[in-house]
């Protein structure tokens, strides 16, 4: 694949029209105010039949799980037979939304991809029905909580949240921070270390995954943080003090660390998440480039357009190079998925590291190219620059991507 197909372009153009009509008029409230993005995401889902598609997919996944866990996960099945290009249909809306509001994608991706994804993968059929469907359709908002004040990059090892057995139930304690959708989530996927009273060092204890409901006694969801950017994605803290849950809230209803549960489940999300960040970077870079080219043509100084200056041309050329490279990486991911293959963790990390850095650099250079206007909200590149920075921090920091790439190279 070297360009979008006719059909993919039709999806892109339709999404574009929707964004111009339904998102752009609200950018001020989303990015400079406190409007939560959920109603807009729901409208997107309803408009394009994404809610119905989610219901159809849910039924297939549920049936397969019920048929006993010969249950192939959607990822496994895609690995066997290819996804028929479905990856593109998920990525195109991501690319397009990131021309304006990467935060909307973050809020949506965490709810549908991480929270619902984990429940669908690890949950029992009853748990899938109880929490999975409403999250997949965006009727409810989900959060996925692993990071803690004292452990982000080292989330699994350094995790301090605990789950203590009490008869048939568990008592959960701990704090989570930087949690996307934390302030508004109806359903929270919560990771904690099993405290079974043994003297296993805390780093080595089992990681269990629980599902929490908004309003449970002992569960507090903070207000949204004030942050550098990504305002259209609310981020907050969670406080658990003696939250009592039955086994029905433990995903899979077992403490056994099966393939795909606990630690594995957190890691299993890495590839999808990192490919997603590359698609987000692509949208943001495309927009910065488009705005910069237009400005370089229009802005006249000393009787000449600034685009005629070589220092400005260098900026545009570098932006175009970044766009080409990131687009090729995204296309490669789509092609691999269609062929029933998947990026290795190291490849996904390389893709994420490159795309995130490219997005940040392109956006900061766009601010520079716009001069004083670049620093003003009206010209939009300042928002994109603030938003791009987070691509280098979440879904694994740049430094962590480096360790994943290097580990793979050195262990070959």
């Amino acid at each position, binding site marked *: 694949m070297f360009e979008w197909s*006719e*059909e993919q372009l*039709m*999806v892109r153009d*339709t999404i574009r029209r929707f964004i111009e009509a339904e998102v752009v008029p609200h950018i001020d409230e989303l990015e400079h105010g406190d409007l939560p993005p959920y109603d807009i995401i729901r409208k997107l889902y309803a*408009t*394009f*039949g994404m809610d119905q598609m989610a219901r159809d997919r849910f039924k297939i996944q549920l049936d397969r799980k019920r048929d006993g866990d010969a249950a192939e996960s959607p990822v496994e099945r895609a690995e066997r037979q290819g996804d028929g290009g479905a990856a593109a249909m998920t990525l195109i809306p991501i690319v397009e939304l990131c021309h304006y509001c990467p935060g909307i994608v973050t809020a949506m991706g965490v709810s549908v991809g991480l929270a619902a994804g984990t429940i669908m993968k690890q949950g029992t059929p009853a748990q899938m029905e109880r929490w999975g469907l409403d999250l997949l359709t965006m009727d409810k908002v989900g959060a996925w909580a692993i990071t803690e004040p004292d452990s982000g990059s080292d989330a699994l090892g350094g995790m301090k949240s605990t789950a203590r057995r009490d008869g048939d139930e568990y008592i959960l304690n701990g704090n989570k921070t930087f949690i996307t959708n934390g302030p508004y989530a109806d359903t929270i996927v919560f990771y904690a270390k099993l405290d079974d009273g043994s003297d296993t060092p805390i780093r080595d204890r089992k990681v269990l995954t629980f599902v929490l409901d908004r309003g449970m006694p002992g569960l507090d969801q903070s207000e949204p943080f004030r942050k550098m950017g990504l305002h259209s994605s609310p981020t907050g803290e969670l406080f658990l003090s003696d939250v009592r849950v039955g086994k029905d809230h433990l995903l899979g209803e077992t403490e056994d660390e099966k393939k795909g549960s606990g630690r594995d489940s957190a890691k299993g999300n890495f590839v999808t998440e990192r490919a997603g960040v590359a698609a987000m970077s692509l949208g943001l870079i495309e927009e910065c480039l488009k705005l910069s080219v237009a400005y370089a043509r229009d802005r006249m100084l000393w009787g000449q357009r600034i685009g005629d200056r070589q220092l400005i041309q260098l900026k545009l050329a570098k932006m175009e190079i970044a766009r080409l490279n990131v687009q090729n990486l995204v296309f490669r991911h789509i092609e691999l998925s269609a062929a029933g293959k998947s990026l290795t963790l190291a490849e996904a990390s390389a893709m994420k590291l490159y795309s995130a850095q490219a997005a940040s650099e392109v956006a900061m250079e766009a601010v520079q190219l716009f001069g004083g206007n670049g620093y003003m909200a009206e010209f939009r590149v300042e928002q994109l620059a603030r938003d791009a920075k987070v691509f280098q921090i979440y879904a694994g920091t740049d430094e962590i991507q480096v360790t994943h790439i290097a580990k793979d190279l050195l262990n070959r």
Partner: protein
Amino acid sequence: MNVVVCVKQIPDPAAPPSLDPGTNNLIRAGKLILDDSDAYGVEMALQLVDKAGEGEVTLVSMTPNGETSGLRTALAMGAAKAILISDDSLAGTDALGTAKVLAAAIKRAEPDLILAATESTDGYTGTTPVQIAEILGLPSVTFAKKVEIDGGSLKVERQTEAGYDEVESPLPALVTVTAGVVEPRYPSFKGIMAAKSKPVETLTIADLGIDAGQVGAIGARQEITDVSASEERASGEIVVDEGDAHQRVIQFLEQLKVL
């Protein structure tokens, strides 16, 4: 309830248009898109069929080069199938010729109702639909801002300068709709994916039994004799304030007799 919608595929109005210097016709060589004006007819048709609970929406389009991009958009919205008439001998066909071709194709679909836009975005003579109705011997109702089917009859609110007329007509009939009639839906992802496998029947004028002498440049009774650039808007006068600007503004307004 079977509805035919006439949909015109046109060059993207956002791109600068170009004319053939020999014939003064619009050049339609590149990708063609669904005329926005026709999205309303498609939506109206889908809603009427949905309400009737049976039947389907068929698109009819006359287009050069076998182009189907615009049709795919309307199919993605939910139309069931399309008839495309594309034939080299149609080059230079005028509005009446177009109406003859479309009428012959529509007849094959045996519709209960035919919808078209009030006027197209590129040619906008607004004459094709009524000529189709005349050729088919059907009643036509123009400028519809509301369309309902009540049993076997058609009820239309027809936009006028003063308000609207309530019109009733037996079916089959032809109706031209305005942009206010309904809000066109976005094609769903599923619709877009389904569109590529929906049938598009491509016909030549021979398939329709039309004689080549009636259409094309030979059959055309209209000819574009001259095209001239529209007058550039005169630039306004800039008043540089040298202390007397307010007086000059007042003078200007007095000249206009608004003061």
